[in-house]
C-alpha cells in the first residue's frame, strides 16, 4: 500500500478500473469522451468547467488533468483562477443558502 491515499502515479492507472467490468468501463469512456468533445461549448470551456467541478469535489487527479487540459486548449492562469472562484462561490453559496433551512427550524421552534 502507498503511504498516502492520493499518489500522482495512480492517475495513469485510471484505466485499471476497466479490468473487472470492461463493459461498464467502455460505456463510461464512450460517454466521457462524448461529453468532452467539441459541441455547443468548446474544449477550452469544458475543461474550465471541469477545473471548477474538480475543485468543488476536491479531486487532485482531476485538478491536475484539467488544469493541463485547460492550458492545452488555450486557457490562461486568470481564466483558471476565475473557474476556481466560481467553484468557491457556489460551494460557499450552497452552505449559506442552507442557512434558510436553519432559519426555518429556528423560527418554528424558537420564541
Amino acid at each position, binding site marked *: 500500500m502507498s503511504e498516502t491515499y492520493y499518489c500522482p502515479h495512480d492517475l495513469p492507472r485510471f484505466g485499471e478500473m476497466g479490468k473487472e467490468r470492461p463493459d461498464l468501463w467502455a460505456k463510461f469512456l464512450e460517454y466521457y469522451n462524448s461529453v468532452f468533445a467539441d459541441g455547443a461549448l*468548446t*474544449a*477550452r470551456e469544458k475543461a474550465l468547467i471541469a477545473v471548477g467541478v474538480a475543485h468543488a469535489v476536491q479531486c487532485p487527479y482531476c485538478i491536475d488533468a484539467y488544469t493541463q487540459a485547460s*492550458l492545452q*486548449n488555450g486557457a*490562461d*492562469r*486568470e481564466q483558471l483562477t476565475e473557474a476556481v472562484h466560481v467553484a468557491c462561490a457556489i460551494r460557499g453559496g450552497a452552505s449559506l443558502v442552507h442557512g434558510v433551512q436553519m432559519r426555518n427550524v429556528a423560527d418554528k421552534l424558537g420564541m
Partner: protein
Amino acid sequence: MARIPLPTLQSRSHPLSVPATQLSVLAATGVPRFDDVMSSHGREPLESSAIEVLQVNVGKLCNQTCAHCHVDAGPDRREVMTAETAAQVIELLRRHPIPTLDVTGGAPELNPQFRFLAREAAALGRRVIDRCNLSVLLLPAQRDLVPFLVEHRVEVTASLPSFRASGTDAQRGEGIFEKSLEALRLLNAAGYGRGGGLVLNLVHNPVGAFLPGDQGSLERDYRRELSERHGVVFDRLFTITNMPISRFLDHLERTGNLQRYMHLLVEAFNPRAADGVMCRTYLSVGWDGTLYDCDFNQMLAMPTNHGAPQTLGALLATGGALPRRVVTDRHCFGCTAGAGSSCAGAVAE
C-alpha cells in the same frame, strides 16, 4: 504573465547555442531514437517523395526574441540571405514546378531579399507564404509592407499564441499582444482574413510545456474571442507543437520540464501523424543556400543527407533531390505527437 525580453542564446554564448549540444541534451533524456519508434510502429524511415513547398529561411534577424523560438532569432543576429542565394531560389522555382514558396526567418520581411523572392515567385504564378510575426508590420521602415503583400497576393501566416494578452506577451514579449492586434487590424483593413483571395492564417503555439489542444476547437475560440472582443477576423488557425530545440529547449531545462516534455512527446507518438509530417513534402533552404529536410533540422545544422544534394548550387547542377531519405533525431517526436504538427498545423485528425 509578462516577461523580460531574453537576449539570444548566441549573444549569451549559451551552451545550447551549439546545435551538437542540443542533440546531446535530447539524447541524455533517455528517450528512444526516432527511427526505432517508427520501426516499432511498422513504419519505414521517413522519406520525401515530392516537393510541394519550398520553405526558405532568409535569416535569423528578427525584431522580437520570443521565448520558444527554435531559430534563436533576434535583433542581434546577422545571418541573412544574400541576393545571389535568393536568385538561386528563384532559379530553382523557374526550373521546377514547386507550387508554394514559404518564406520564414527570423522576421523574413526585414531581409531585403524578401520582396525580391515574393515578387519573383508570385510572377511565376506560385503561392507565396509570409511567416509574419505581426509586430514587424508596425515598424516605420515597413509602412509599405501591407500594400506590397496585397499587390503580390502574398498569403500571411501570423503567429498569435493566444487570444489573450497574458499568454501572447509571456511567449513573445511585453506589449506584443496589443501590437499584434494593431497589425491584424491593418491586414483586415487591407482585405486580409475575410475569406476572399487575401489569406490570413494564425498560428497557435502552446504557452508552456504541453501539447497544443484540438485545432478545430481552438480555432472556434480564437474566432469568437478575436471577433467579439477585438474586431479581428482571420481565415484559419494552425496549431504547432513547440519543438524541444534552441530557446524552447533552454526554457524546458530552466523550468525542470525537459524530461517530462520529451516523454510526453514520445508517449503521444501517433503513427498517422508520422504519415503526414511536412518533411515528406517540403524542402528547406537555409540563409546560406544549404538544403535541409525541414526548418528544425536547419537550426540543428543537420543538412539533407543520404546522397541528396546539400546546397542550392548542387541541386541546380544535378537537378534532383527525390526521393530523399529524411535526416531524423529525437526532436522529430515534436512533429509526430498527438494530432501531429507542421507549418500548416495539425496533420492527423
